């Protein structure tokens, strides 16, 4: 995987894999186990600087920041994955139908997605959250809805491009059923394009989730979340800079890793084709 067909080393892919791999590992382990309890407070260990005992230091309640970053990473990864799954599959379904068939359905769906695109996404999630009240599922749902239009557009344009390809015409001549043409004949051919947009979407989801937590409309305490930690740390920037640095750099790390990973995938696809 790291070595591409032409024998050239794909550095983007390697770096991306390493960075996201580490982040995902920490996050997934963080869901089940952390070095310290993420909620246990200890007045004696308030604002300990990073040390071998607490490698990212401790916060204003004496909680181990590394453990909380691990848990926050887990939360973020799970939420982002579900958001991408939700919006991606909705995007494929709507994009495939509108792109292939066109017509009235296409007009309606496209005008609705235009309308959704018209709002700033954070405002829209705010509205949805205020209607549904906050909580894990509602964060996923609201972000999912906000991200659907971008996938619909990409999938739709690919389906429009391919619906008149010779091999699709031929499939129609053979009498292949419509749904089979959509999802067996066309869909695999758009994956290289779709995959890149999923990667970018995943990054956007991480950032959006952190942003919502930062604003206090994301996951609620006592669940740890990178965004929430950032906003908590704001008040202690001078006294305990590591408190803000740890979650901040974690976000940068995972987003950068993913960006490199998707760039690596793109380059690999390009070289193959």
């Amino acid at each position, binding site marked *: 995987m790291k070595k591409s067909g032409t024998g050239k080393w794909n550095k983007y892919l390697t770096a991306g894999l390493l960075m996201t791999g580490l982040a995902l590992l920490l996050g997934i382990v963080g869901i089940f186990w952390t070095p310290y309890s993420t909620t246990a407070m200890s007045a004696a260990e308030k604002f300990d600087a990073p040390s071998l005992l607490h490698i990212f230091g401790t916060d204003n309640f004496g909680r181990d920041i590394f453990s909380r970053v691990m848990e926050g990473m887990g939360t973020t990864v799970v939420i982002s994955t579900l958001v991408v799954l939700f919006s991606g599959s909705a995007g494929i379904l709507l994009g495939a139908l509108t792109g292939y068939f066109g017509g009235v359905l296409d007009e309606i769906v496209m005008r609705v997605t235009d309308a959704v695109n018209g709002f700033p996404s954070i405002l829209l999630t705010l509205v949805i959250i205020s209607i549904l009240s906050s909580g894990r599922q509602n964060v996923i749902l609201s972000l999912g809805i906000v991200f659907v239009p971008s996938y619909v557009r990409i999938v739709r344009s690919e389906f429009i491009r391919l619906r008149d*390809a*010779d091999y699709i015409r*031929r499939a129609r*001549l*053979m009498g*292949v059923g419509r749904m089979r043409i959509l999802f067996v004949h066309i869909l*695999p051919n758009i994956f290289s394009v779709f995959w890149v947009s999923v990667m970018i979407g995943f990054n956007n989801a991480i950032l959006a989730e952190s942003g919502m937590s930062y604003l206090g409309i994301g996951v609620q305490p006592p669940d740890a979340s990178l965004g929430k930690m950032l906003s908590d740390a704001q008040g202690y920037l001078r006294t305990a800079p590591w408190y803000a640095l740890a979650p901040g750099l974690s976000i940068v790390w995972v987003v950068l890793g993913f960006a490199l990973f998707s760039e690596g995938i793109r380059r690999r696809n390009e070289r193959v084709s």
Partner: protein
Amino acid sequence: MIRIEDLSVAFEDTEAVKHVSLELIDGEVLGVVGESGSGKSVTALTLMGLVADSAQITSGRVLFDDVVLREAGKPCDKALYRKYQGARMSMVFQEPMTSLNPTQRVGKQVEEMLRLHTDLRGEEMKRKVLEAFRSVGLREVEKVYSCYPHQLSGGMRQRVMIAMAVILHPRLIVADEPTTALDVTIQNQIIGLLREINQKQNNAMLFITHDLNLARRLCNRIAVMKDGEVVELGETEDIFQNPGEAYTKRLIEAVPSRMKRRRNIAAVRGMGEPAGSGLAGKLPTGRESEAEAGAGQERCAELERCTGQERCAELERCTGQERCAELERCTGQDGRNPILQVRNLSVYYRDGNNSLFSRREKQCVVSGADFELYSGESLGLVGESGCGKTSLSKAILGINKEVEGEITHTTLRPQMIFQDPYSSLNPSKTIGWLLMEPLRARAALDKAYAMTREDMEAAAYDMLHKVGMEDKYFHRKPSQLSGGQRQRVSIGQALITRPGMIVADEPVSALDVTIQAQIMELMQKLQQEMHLSYLFISHDINVVYQMCDRIMVMKEGRIIECGETEAIFHNPREKYTKLLLGNS
């Protein structure tokens, strides 16, 4: 004099051109002929200094008079080249749409040449451009001057390109497949124009083409290239009369031509029958129909022999539905029954975009088509681009629903072979999957055709062999195949359900001549084996001549002439048909 001495060009580790030496004197037209990948374009681009920077000159040099333009081991001297490009050497490209800037008026684009290389300005410049336009045979030059490329036809665009190339009277003109993208009649005009310019201006011309016939009509000398090497170089007629190399011989033989005798298709077809019947039994489906067809053909011959009373007796003797069907098939014209009947067919095209509110204009692209296709025959459909050939075929296949008139065919699902082998196979599937998909689709539509996976695989392997490919390709993807191989798979995919009727839309136009010949042979072989009817669409009248029993000529949406191939070729009735024939 322009000299290429021992030139080798390499891209990374592949050598595209190997030790090529060519010489061009003033007033001479040198043809460089070869199939795709033979290095002819790279040679020309290197000569012009337009080859990509990643190309390395590994040996030899390019000389213009006595000036060294390019030498092995030295980087391209762009400043030096700029003095030569345009003024002393110019190029005509293949695709006139992409070699003109779509956002600029063509007059301005031609003026650019004058602005860069002469002191002419303003009105003088325009006068010179109009003069050049007139000299390349453009009419209404003032209007052309202020047109954008998309407002001109392909032929006119190519004329503009040529005007741009010759306006400064360069010593050398490199024409890289200048007529490939054009219709035959236009092609002929452009060739005539190039010859005229060559005689008038006495410049040297390097004419690159894959079409030997074209090279023969224009060039004084011909260089045949293969795998980056010049394998043969000589006077045009010498090469055609006494090809020295086996490759040249093959190339000349592969070119479809009316000079060569056509196979007697009817005779061959009769002999083909046992083969067809022999196949029966190997496959679980299609067996009956195949055997029936074989028997039918024999019976037909028998029936033809019978006359009057005898035939009546024969008719009386027949009982049961099967026999009747057989007889029905045998009566009718030439003892063959039409597998497809088209009566007074008009095809329309809906203009406008796919929007909710825009009203769509209806445009008639084919009107009053009236013909039939008989079982086991090849019917050629000839015409220039835009004459409605493809619209007609789409209507027959049922892709285009905007039709008036009657189409009746006896086959269940006629299939199609497409022109471009690179876009007609789904790139994400394996060859085996592609060959089995028609069987799956048929099974999904009609339970009677349901097959087990093993049977389907067996049928796919069998088809793979039939189209002349080995087992190992079964698990490959289309991207791992060459153009000819893809076209073979494409044919296999169309035939695996034994549709009886195939619409072939320019099936060999995108292929090299030698591959073209192979595919045509394959199609004829399969026609005998499987008793197929082809509706064969092509702009190349020579290809049609070799493939078809009857020919229809189409012009502006109408079928203007229809008849036996030999009859049409020897006594064309319509002026337009004569024009088409005369031009190739």
